[in-house]
């Protein structure tokens, strides 16, 4: 599964880890994060993320 990076602050969403601060379970792909999920470090929305290759 692909990692995604926050363009604003550099946080990397790793699906293997999920985001415990928002109750996102490990194994959740970025695409399946809820629309109102925000960057846990800086608070901006999903649309500020780009896929890492």
């Amino acid at each position, binding site marked *: 599964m692909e990692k995604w990076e926050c363009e604003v602050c550099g946080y990397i969403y790793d699906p293997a880890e999920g985001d415990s601060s928002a109750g996102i379970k490990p194994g959740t792909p970025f695409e399946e994060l809820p629309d109102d999920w925000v960057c846990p470090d*800086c*608070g901006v929305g999903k649309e500020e993320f780009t896929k890492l290759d």
Partner: protein
Amino acid sequence: MDPVLLKEGIYWVGAVDWDMRYFHGPVLGTHRGTTYNSYLIVDEKITLVDTVYTPFAGEMLERIRKIVDPSRIDYIVINHVEVDHSGALPEVMKLAPQAKIFCSAKGKAGLLKHYYGDWDYQVVETGTTLSLGKRSLSFIEAPMLHWPDSMFTYLPEEALLMPNDAFGQHLASAFRFDDQVDNRIIMEEAARYYANILYPLSRLVLKKLEEVKAMNIPIAMIAPSHGVIWRQNPGQIIEAYQRWASGEWFPKAVVVYDTMWGSTAAMARAIVEGIVSEDVDTRLFKISVRDINSIITELLEARLLVVGSPTINRGYLSVLSPFLDDLAGLKPVNRLGAAFGSYGWSKGAVKAIEAKLEAAGLTLAGEGLEILWVPDSGELESCREWGRALARKVKAEL
């Protein structure tokens, strides 16, 4: 200075810092000082919106005392954790320990990690409303404008927006409102503020402007946390933010250079002549005697940035480094770049500058210009021609 009335029962109780010359440590030259604006709303609930920088706590409290006893403060809104606005919070909390603090979730986390105070935090979100009695407040989260905790506070009954750092200016003045201070100076400082703090967040600025527009809320007055309050023409600063954030430009160039023995300086002057001969306005900065923040501010409305350095130890002069580093962090929107310089044997400065410009998100407008040792008259003419070609590129897009 007495408290200043914004609207019935709403007062400016902040502080004017005439002496502030460097803000964010050494980062931002504030040649006109600044103000820390905090606002007191007297209603059934006595409410303080933001505080001031720590050394000004006493001054703010004096001002509040002229209206009410600070121990009577019920609510404190902290729009932004940064010390220039929250620094006086511990002093206020000593006098009004019962006060509830309204802030974003990141605001609470940030305040806890700054002041370690065991206070009554009330976390708010976009859409949360708070009744003060006759009037009310609502909140709009604004993450990364310019910190994760940032938010705006809106008072619908007066169509008053208190957006903290957004729309601010580092400008100390005798008067508090936009119609009382020279508009050219206000806009100069608003531009300097935007270019040196908000530039890298431009995409978020555009989105927030759109979001607020879509909320369809009237805005009759904007009371930021620095500088003058926009009461005569709040639209002026909203329009300017729209322009700056979307990278609009004038046919204008900024040329920045330094030199060891004068060759790169001669090139710079000839390049400026070339650009100007095509009627493109130009500013020339020798970096070692100029202030980086002013250069970045000029870039806010210029299309083209030209940077020159002789080659030293296969790279560029290190006096250019702080400027190029700042540029990489501030990421000017939609700008063209080009590099030039004199060299003796290996070359290297131009390539290294070009790499920095590209890293800062600029698009290279053409090949760099390198001249061996001292330029002769023919080579100075090629500098002029190089400048003319760049200027024509700028004009072609008009």
